[in-house]
C-alpha cells in the first residue's frame, strides 16, 4: 500500500552529505537528530539548574569558577544583589554580561528567575518532548508499524528544523538587554505581559515567539504521526496489535494537535499586550489575569501527560522483553491511556485551586483530578502484573524501566496530596510541587528515555552501548536523583516556597523542625552536582558507542516488535518486503513454542491472538 517509490532507494545511490545528515528526509536520521539535539539541551538545562542550586544552598555566595570576582577576592565580602535598582539592569552599555547577571559573582535575583524559568522551559519543550516525541516517535513509528517512512517526510524535516529554530530563539533570549524571561515556565500574566512590571523586555518576547515556533514544529510532527499510524500500518497490524509505545505516541500526537493552538493563541495575546498595547490580561484595561492561567493550563495539563505517555509506552515495550512475558492486561493498558487522554482536558483547574478562581469550580476539578489517578494506578498494577511469574533479565534498559515504575508511583501518589484542594492550600507553590514534577518527569519520563536510548541504540546505530558504563550511570543517577528530589517533599511540607532565591530570608524555614531547611538545601545541591556529573557518563557512552560500540546483531534482545525484523543497520526504506503481521507484540514464552519469543511476523498457532490473517490483507 505504501511501498511505492521508495523501493528504488533501497540499494543504490549514495545521498549527498547534506541530504543524509542535515536536511534528511529519512525518519531514522530525523529521529537521531532529535536525539542528539535533546541530549545536548539536556546538559544545557541541567547546567542552569546547577547554577541556581548553588544559590539555594549557599545564598549570595559567589558561584565558583565563573563567579569569583575581583571584588570578592579583594574584600571577601559582596553587596547582595537584591539592593540594586531597576534601571541598572537596562544601562547595559557599562557592564559585561556576567557583571549584569552575576554582579560580584553572585547570581542576581532577576537572573535567578531567568535561570529557573529557562531550566523548566528548556527541559519541558526542548528536552523531554523532542526526545520522547521527536526522537523515539520518529525512529519508532514507521519501524514498529512496519512501513518505509513517515507519511510526510518533508514535513518531518521541517519539524526538526523549526524545533531547532525555536531553540536558537530561546537561547538568544539570554543575551538581550533586560535579561531573559523570568516569569516561570508558566509565564503568569501580568508579570509576563507588562514590560514595566518585570523589567524584562525582549527576553519575554523571545520566549513567546520561540514557544510558538516550537509549537508549530510539534504540530507538523503530530499531523505526520497521526496520518502515518492511521494509514500506513503493515498488513495484519490491527489497532489491537499495535505496540503500546505506538498507542502512546498516537494519543500524544492527538493531544499535541489539540492543545497547541490554545497556547499559541494565548502566547500571541501576551505578545499583543506587550507590544501592541492591548490589555487582555490587565484588569485596569478590562482584561483578566486569570484568563492566562485558564488558557495556559488548558494546554499545559495535557502537555504534562504528553511528557509521560510515551515514557509509559516505552516502559511497556521494555518490561515484557526483559520479563520474557506478555504485558499484563494489554487492552486495559490501552484504555487507561485513552482515559488519561480524555480526562486530561478537564483537570486543568487543579493548578488554580488557590488562584482566586471560584471555589466551587475547585470542587469539580478536585473530583476529575482524583479520577485521573485511577488510570495511572491501573497502569502501575499492570506493570507489576507483568513481572509476576516472569524471568527477569536485569539489563540496563530493564533497570531503567523498573526505576520508571517505582518513581512514577511516588510521583502519582504525591499527586493525590495536591489533588486534594484543602491540602493543596498549604502545599501549593511549595517544593512539594517541585518534588512531584520531578518524580513524574525525571523519575518517570527521563528514566524511560535513558532506558529507551540503551534499548533501541543497537537498531539506531548498529552498535551496542557499553553495559558496564550504562549500569554505573544508572545507579549513580538513580541514587542521586532520589537524593535531590525526595527531600524536596520534606521542604514542601515544612512550607518552603518554590521560586525563591534565598531561603535564608525566612525565619520559619531556618527554624524548620526537626531539621532546618538550609542543611537540607545543601544536601540537595550536593546530590544535584553528582547527578549532573553522572550525565557525562551517558554522553560519553552514547558518543563513544556510535563509533566504537560492539557491533549489534539484528535482534539482540530477542524481541517481537517489527523494528527488530528490519536489518541492522536499517537501510533507507527500512524493510526488504513489507512484513506481514500475525499477532500482538507481546507473545513471549508462548507454551509449546520452540523459543521464548514469537516475532509479530511469525505465525503463532497457540496464542489466542494468533489467528492468521490472510496474506495481503490490509490493516483494517
Amino acid at each position, binding site marked *: 500500500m505504501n511501498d511505492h517509490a521508495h523501493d528504488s532507494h533501497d540499494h543504490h545511490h549514495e545521498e549527498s552529505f547534506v541530504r543524509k545528515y542535515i536536511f534528511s528526509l529519512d525518519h531514522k536520521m530525523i529521529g537521531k537528530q532529535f536525539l542528539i539535539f535533546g541530549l545536548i539541551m539536556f546538559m544545557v538545562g541541567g547546567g542552569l539548574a546547577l547554577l541556581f542550586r548553588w544559590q539555594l544552598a549557599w545564598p549570595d555566595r559567589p558561584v565558583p569558577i565563573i563567579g569569583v570576582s575581583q571584588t570578592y577576592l579583594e574584600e571577601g565580602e559582596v553587596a547582595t544583589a537584591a539592593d540594586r535598582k531597576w534601571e541598572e539592569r537596562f544601562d547595559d552599555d557599562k557592564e559585561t554580561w556576567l557583571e549584569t547577571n552575576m554582579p560580584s559573582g553572585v547570581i542576581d535575583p532577576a537572573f535567578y528567575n531567568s535561570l529557573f524559568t529557562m531550566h523548566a522551559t528548556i527541559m519541558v519543550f526542548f528536552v523531554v518532548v523532542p526526545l520522547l516525541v521527536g526522537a523515539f516517535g520518529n525512529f519508532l513509528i514507521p519501524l514498529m508499524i512496519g512501513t518505509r517512512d513517515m507519511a510526510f517526510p518533508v514535513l518531518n524535516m521541517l519539524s526538526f528544523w523549526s524545533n531547532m529554530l525555536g531553540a536558537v530563539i530561546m537561547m538568544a533570549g539570554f543575551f538581550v538587554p533586560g535579561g531573559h524571561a523570568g516569569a516561570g515556565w508558566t509565564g503568569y500574566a*501580568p508579570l509576563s505581559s507588562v514590560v514595566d512590571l518585570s523589567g524584562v523586555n525582549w527576553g519575554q518576547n523571545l520566549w513567546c515567539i520561540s514557544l510558538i515556533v516550537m509549537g508549530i514544529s510539534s504540530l507538523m510532527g503530530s499531523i505526520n504521526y497521526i496520518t502515518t499510524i492511521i494509514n500506513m500500518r503493515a498488513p495484519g497490524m490491527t489497532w489491537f496489535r499495535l505496540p503500546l509505545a505506538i498507542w502512546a505516541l498516537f494519543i500524544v500526537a492527538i493531544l499535541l494537535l489539540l492543545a497547541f493552538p490554545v497556547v499559541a493563541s494565548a502566547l500571541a495575546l501576551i505578545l499583543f499586550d506587550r507590544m501592541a498595547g492591548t490589555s487582555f490580561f490587565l484588569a485596569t484595561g478590562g482584561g483578566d489575569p486569570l484568563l492566562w492561567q485558564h488558557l495556559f493550563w488548558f494546554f499545559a495539563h495535557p502537555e504534562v501527560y504528553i511528557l509521560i505517555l510515551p515514557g509509559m509506552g516505552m516502559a511497556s515495550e521494555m518490561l515484557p522483553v526483559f520479563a520474557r512475558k*506478555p504485558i499484563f492486561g494489554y487492552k486495559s493498558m490501552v484504555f487507561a491511556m485513552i482515559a488519561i487522554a480524555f480526562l486530561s482536558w478537564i483537570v486543568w483547574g487543579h493548578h488554580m485551586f488557590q488562584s482566586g478562581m471560584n471555589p466551587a469550580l475547585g470542587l469539580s476539578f478536585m*473530583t476529575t483530578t482524583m479520577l485521573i489517578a485511577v488510570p495511572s494506578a491501573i497502569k502501575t498494577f499492570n506493570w507489576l*502484573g507483568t513481572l509476576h511469574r516472569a*524471568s527477569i533479565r536485569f539489563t540496563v534498559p530493564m533497570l531503567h524501566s523498573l526505576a520508571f515504575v517505582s518513581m512514577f508511583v511516588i510521583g502519582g501518589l504525591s499527586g493525590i496530596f495536591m489533588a486534594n484542594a484543602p491540602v493543596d492550600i498549604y502545599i501549593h507553590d511549595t517544593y512539594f510541587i517541585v518534588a512531584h514534577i520531578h518524580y513524574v518527569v525525571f523519575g518517570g519520563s527521563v528514566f524511560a528515555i535513558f532506558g529507551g536510548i540503551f534499548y533501541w541504540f543497537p537498531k539506531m546505530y548498529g552498535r551496542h552501548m557499553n553495559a558496564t558504563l550504562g549500569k554505573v550511570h544508572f545507579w549513580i543517577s538513580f541514587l542521586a536523583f532520589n537524593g535531590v528530589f525526595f527531600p524536596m517533599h*520534606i521542604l514542601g511540607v515544612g512550607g518552603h516556597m518554590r521560586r525563591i532565591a534565598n531561603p535564608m530570608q525566612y525565619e*520559619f524555614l531556618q527554624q524548620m523542625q*526537626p531539621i532546618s531547611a538550609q542543611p537540607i538545601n545543601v544536601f540537595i545541591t550536593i546530590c544535584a552536582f553528582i547527578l549532573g556529573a553522572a550525565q557525562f557518563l551517558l554522553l560519553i557512552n552514547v558518543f563513544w558507542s556510535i563509533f566504537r560500540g560492539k557491533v549489534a546483531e539484528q535482534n539482540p534482545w530477542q524481541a517481537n516488535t517489527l523494528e527488530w525484523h528490519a536489518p541492522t543497520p536499517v537501510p533507507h526504506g527500512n524493510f526488504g518486503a513489507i512484513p506481514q503481521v500475525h499477532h500482538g507484540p507481546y507473545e513471549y514464552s508462548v507454551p509449546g513454542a520452540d523459543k521464548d519469543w514469537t516475532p509479530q511476523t511469525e505465525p503463532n498457532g497457540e496464542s489466542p491472538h494468533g489467528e492468521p490473517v490472510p496474506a495481503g490483507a490490509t490493516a483494517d
Partner: protein
Amino acid sequence: MKWLNFPAWLPENVSTFGQGVDNLFILIYWITAIVFLAVMAVLVVFIIKYRFQEGRNAEYIEGSTTLEIVWTAATTVIVFGLAMLSLPQWNKIKFPSQFPGNPGAVVQVNGKQFNWDMTYPGPDGEWGTDDDLQLENQLHVPVNEVVHIRLTADDVIHSFFVPQLRLKQDALPGRFINMWFEATKPGTYEIPCAELCGFGHSGMLGYLTVHTEEDYAAWISERWGE
C-alpha cells in the same frame, strides 16, 4: 526514620481550620505510605523471586479481568472517598457564604511589588475614609477571633501565605478576594509571598502579629483612641 514521617515536618498549626487540613494531610499520608510500601514490597519480591534462573521459564499470562476490575474499583473508591472527605473542609475555608460572622478585625491586604500593604478601615468600618490606617507589612489581629481579609494586588499576582495558619490565597490585581481565619495562639508569624512576582519575590515578607485580647485593645486605642 522520623524524617520519613511527613506530618512531623508541618509547622505548628495556629488556626481553627488548620487542624482539619492537617488531618486530611495525615490521612492521605498514611494511605499513600501504605500503598507505596505495598507496591514496593510486591515489586521487590517479584524482582527477587522471578529473576532469571537457569531452567525456569516465564509463564505465559496475558492478564486477569477480575484483577483489573478489583484494582480499578478499589482505587476509584479510595480517591472518591478522599474527595468527598475534603469537601466540607474546602467549603469551610474558601466559600465566602460559609465564613463565620462577627469578625474581630477586618483588614484589606494589598500585595504590591514587593510589600504587603495592610489597610484597617478604622472605627467607621469603611475603607477610603480619613480614619483609615495603613501599615506596611504589619498585620495585627486579636487571638481567638474571626478575622476577615479583603485581598487584592496592585501590580502583578502575589500570594498571601501564612504557613502556621494553613492559609494561602493568590492576590489578583483588579479583584477583591475575601478570606478568613481565626488564630488560636498569640505570637508573630511570617507572611511570605508564595507566587512569583518579580525580582524581589524572594524576601517579600510581611508579619502577622496575633495579640491577646488586652494587647489588641491597647493596640487599637493607641491608634484611634476610644
